[in-house]
């Protein structure tokens, strides 16, 4: 509701004062309709949530593993251009397997090299969807 209200207020900002001149239904007509509906629905949902009781059992999760997984994905996305797709994905593959509890280190070592290499070859070479390359090797 807060986000919807802030976006609705944003549509009246100076930024859009010159848009849609002479047009009865300008660029902000449709988004404003949606934002009004958004705010109303969010308000109803808020009232419903305040009235009803939420079940607490759904929050019994493995938060350390979850956060580690999210962090690994974020670091992978962040490093993909710095290290190149191939190197970043090899590291990500090994890290994720360890986070999820796999402990056969030889298999991890082999698979985390072969699978990213196969994926890289399929996309970068065969399908020619050019993946980010590393700053040290122009070819990968």
């Amino acid at each position, binding site marked *: 509701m807060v986000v919807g209200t802030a*976006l609705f207020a*944003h549509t009246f900002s100076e930024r*859009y004062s010159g*848009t*849609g001149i002479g*047009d*009865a*239904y*300008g*660029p*902000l007509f*449709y*988004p404003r309709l*949606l*934002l009004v*509906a*958004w705010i109303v*629905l*969010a308000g*109803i*949902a808020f009232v*419903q949530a305040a009235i009803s009781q939420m079940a607490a059992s*759904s*929050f*019994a*999760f*493995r938060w350390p*593993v*979850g956060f*580690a*997984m*999210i962090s690994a*994905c*974020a670091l*992978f*996305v962040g490093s*993909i*251009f710095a290290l190149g*797709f191939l190197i970043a*994905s090899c590291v*990500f*593959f090994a890290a*994720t*397997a360890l*986070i*999820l*509890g*796999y402990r056969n280190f030889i*298999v*991890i070592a082999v*698979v*985390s090299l072969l*699978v*990213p290499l196969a*994926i890289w070859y399929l*996309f970068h070479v065969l*399908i020619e*969807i050019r*993946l*980010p390359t590393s700053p040290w090797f122009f070819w990968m």
Partner: protein
Amino acid sequence: MEHLLEGMALIATPVAILAILVGTFVGIIIGALPGLGSVVALTIVLPFTYSLGQAPSIALLLGVYAGSIYGGSLSAILINTPGTPASAATALDGFAMAREGRAGEALGWATIASVVGGLFSTLVLVLLAPQLARVALRFGPVEVFALIVLALTSIAAISRGSLIMGLLGGMIGLFLATVGSDPITGDIRFNFGWFPLTSGFNIIAVAIGLFALSEVFVRALEPSGRRFDVLSAGGMKLPSWRELKPRLRQFLKGSVIGTGIGVLPGTGAAAASFISYAEAKRTSSNRQRFGDGEPDGIIASETANNAVTGGALVPTLALGIPGDVVTAVMLTTLLIQGITPGVRLMVDNPEIVYAAFIAFFLINLILLPQGMLAARLFARILKVPEPLLVPAVVILSLIGAYGVRGNWFDLVVALGAGLFGLLLRLFGVPLAPLIIGMVLGSELELSLRQGLILKDDNFWLFFTDHPIALALFGATALVLLSPILGASRKLITDAKLS
């Protein structure tokens, strides 16, 4: 008859048959990879058509098109990640069946539904292409707007137990589609001065994050005692005739909806599959089980999205008007091959038209054995331990998000959508409405604004000047009011009995 035989002669060559076989299988595999989809599949095979003749080129493209639409259902069912937006509705019941250990059944239903939908639209294409083309010409912006409003009612159908949250998700999805350039004036909206947002959010990146990455995060969070087993397809299990017979009406309805919507330029397989799903949920005798692994849900979605492939050929071949990006690529290839689609095609090149029909018929038949082969392939892949499978899924998904525009921002969007999807799932909010909103949002706004321009800003003329649109608005009202009418009728009946 003479042209039909000439068409058969064009297809009955080793090159054309090979094009059908290879194109369909390549389409299935690429369609199954999250984020790639029909357009990428077509552009990959496009260079190969330069060295082929006219009929094999058409056969190759049609094979890739139909195969990729079907292929999207494989990943939707097995890893809850629709390979194409058109398979998002399939994931609702398909993945639920897979979680119950019935992935083979789900794949069987999806395959049969795809084959039936494709064959039905081929039949319609053969018999009624010119007549349907004339109907398509009567669909302007106002009619398209009314149709998309009808498609949006599917949000209510899939928002089980949380209608308000589903509608809110739909509104958020519709709003996210407005970020970027205004479709009429080109003004930049909601980018907050940040250049990467100038072209808006890539729907593929959002869908991948929302479905695939959030699924990965949820799996990581699940306490080890409650984690479900590794999903294993174990091969496809086709339904028996006894299981099929009570569902024949669903097959027919989905096929009709998909073919009808495919004929209309600018709508597409995603809208067709959601409309079909919503209609099936409204009328199915098993509607209570929708979302929990009900085959009717898979049938509705897959017959419709595969029936669109044949329907979409009507405006492309008969009018020379591509219905979407996919048929635009096909149209380009036909032009390169020296074939000019349009009203003269049946007169100037009838043998090519019949060759396309025959090729399409064969492709839909071949979907069954090739689907079984692809399912066995995926079944082997899914036997890999989950800690080794999950990183591969993440990497493939992120490549899918990146590969659409080669833009790092799409990776960030996918990650952000994954986190947002995780929050939605933790609080029991359905994900699909947001995707429905994003898929349909751009076309909804464009058709509304164009319609208002045509009607001199008088919205009421949408109802009075356009009987087709009025009928579609009426259907929308019926869909929205039918639960209330049904409940009222039940109350009256109960009152009379007591």
